[in-house]
């Protein structure tokens, strides 16, 4: 568990907005979000599809392509500003101090290139080392992520690996340069449940050993509960609520967080009707003028529909955006 205050954050995102300028108008995929990640800390970035959590990840990596663009805000990695860097300057960070693991391991490895090609090029992209040294480093990280006989497996093609093994290879590639931060974009969603827990445990262990901070993007609250130190809940491009994982999951402030937790089937509710949030996620191109969640919110009033809530701080250190927060009285006590 990271401690706040004394140490400097690995990643500081401030008021970040990433918009997509499409023919049908501006889509505000990410709209003014701020968060920090401390060294060795695991931040869970939770939200439904289209909430902007993946776009947040790609924005940090500098991998937003037209028609998308980071329109404002700042992303600082160990104090260095990343927003506004050109591709060449950004490449020094990508894969070295800043790595990413993608959702679908079947798609992230190039099908026509051998594993060694894909790993060695990652080593040599940032270090002028011999092929031999690059290969040795590749085998080393493969062993770290639990791939048996890594030397032989290096000569294999991606299709000769199972989905779980491919994700391990992708994680190994992310770990090659011992990055300060790894962004994991739902890396276990496409895997079997048994493999999921293995990969989760593996990543948790590797990050703890190397002091790598982790931004874990997911829609799965159970994963967040078991893995993350802190959690940020995203809705329609904004962070609805963020704080320590126990605080947020046990005593949600934002009605959306509450609804999200209620939607998870629990063991005790067998046979009972599953709670759900009415309606569906709004189109990011046509957001209501007020709080984006207001049309679906059971607690919404006239103020919610009129103007969007700004960021407020709860006494326990949480940040939230809500006119009608839940449990705030209790938290204050």
């Amino acid at each position: 568990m990271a401690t706040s205050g004394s140490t400097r954050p690995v990643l500081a995102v401030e008021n970040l907005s990433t918009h997509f300028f499409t023919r049908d108008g501006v889509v505000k995929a990410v709209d003014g979000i701020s968060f920090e990640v401390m060294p060795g800390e695991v931040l869970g970035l939770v939200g439904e599809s289209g909430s902007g959590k993946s776009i947040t990840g790609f924005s940090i990596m500098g991998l937003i392509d037209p028609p998308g663009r980071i329109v404002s805000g700042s992303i600082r990695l160990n104090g260095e500003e990343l927003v506004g860097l050109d591709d060449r300057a950004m490449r020094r960070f990508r894969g070295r101090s800043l790595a990413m693991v993608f959702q679908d391991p079947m798609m992230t490895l190039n099908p026509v290139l051998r594993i060694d090609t894909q790993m060695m090029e990652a080593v040599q992209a940032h270090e002028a080392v011999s092929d031999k040294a690059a290969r040795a480093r590749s085998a080393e990280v493969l062993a770290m992520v639990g791939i048996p006989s890594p030397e032989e497996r290096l000569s294999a093609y991606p299709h000769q690996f199972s989905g779980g093994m491919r994700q391990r290879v992708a994680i190994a590639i992310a770990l090659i340069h011992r990055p300060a931060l790894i962004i994991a974009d739902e890396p276990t969603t496409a895997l079997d449940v048994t493999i999921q827990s293995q990969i989760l445990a593996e990543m948790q262990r590797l990050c703890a050993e190397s002091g790598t901070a982790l931004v874990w993007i997911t829609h799965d609250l159970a994963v967040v509960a078991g893995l993350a130190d802190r959690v940020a809940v995203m809705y329609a491009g904004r962070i609805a609520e963020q704080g320590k994982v126990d605080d947020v999951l046990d005593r949600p402030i934002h009605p959306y967080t509450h609804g999200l937790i209620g939607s998870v089937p629990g063991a005790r509710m067998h046979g009972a009707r599953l709670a759900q949030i009415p309606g569906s996620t709004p189109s990011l191109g046509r957001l209501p003028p007020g709080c984006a969640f207001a049309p679906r919110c059971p607690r919404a009033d006239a103020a919610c529909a009129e103007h969007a809530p700004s960021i407020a701080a709860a006494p326990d250190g949480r940040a939230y955006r809500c006119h009608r927060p839940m449990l705030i009285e209790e938290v204050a006590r």
Partner: protein
Amino acid sequence: MLAFIIRRLAQALVVIVAMVVLVFFGTHVIGDPVWMMVPGDATQEQIEQVRREFGFDQPAYIQFFRFLGDVMQGEFGRSYVHGESAITLILERMPATMELAFAALVLAVVIGIPLGLFAGLKPDHPLSRGIMAASILGFSLPTFWVGLMLIMLFSVMLGWLPATGQGTTVEIFGIRTSLFTLDGWKHLFLPAVNLALLKVSLVIRLTRSGAREASLQDYVKFARAKGLSPARIVGVHILKNILIPIVTVLGLEFGSLVAFSVVTETIFAWPGMGKLLLEAIQRLDRPLIVAYVMVVVLLFVTINLIVDILYSALDPRVRLTGSQA
């Protein structure tokens, strides 16, 4: 692998036999070659004599079995017009055609792939739009017209390049080629460009759509996330993926370059087998037509086999096995 090749060759044999049957009876229906062989004032008796000499008085199926019997003994028939072995005639002309087709193929790849990559990776760039517009022209303009225009511009008006013939040739391993003399290159250039035009457009379109598709794939984004340079991503990650369809199509297109260079060869008086075929059809020279078809079918089958083998080299997911047809 070996089983795969044997299977392929057996299939080729079936195709060749089927083609020979079709072409043999096809040319039989078209007309009577005797009229092409006797002088205009020949008497009925002379005509009958020529007919008997060549066996044309027999029913078609008997003629066919005779022909088949000859083929079994390695005798592919003599050209009615030239009086020489039809196969020899074709094989003599083949190097010139292959040379032309090969030059056109190289042009198609060397011009088509870079332009296609550019258009695919920067689809909104004005130059990309220009490339795509030009490729539509390449597709739509008739070959013969472009050939004539090329001659008009470069030979007649500018006088830079010769319009006809193969130029100075050298014999290399018993094959006459114009690839080793400057004069030969000059003669080769215009017909090769003419023949390549359609294929350049094809390669541009294939490369462009492949590059557009590949550049959206996760593996490209992942490669970028590794911090690779754009040159490495395009040159290795994207290119190796789009080479698969390009190699397949170009392989097939090479066959058609060889088989259908008839128009270009005729316009530029290129001494290849396309020109020979055109004459053979005009004179109902059946053995020559049949032999030509056999050669072309064999060529197609061989190219397909090479493409399949290349394919497995490019795409590790493809493994050639006996069961794969």
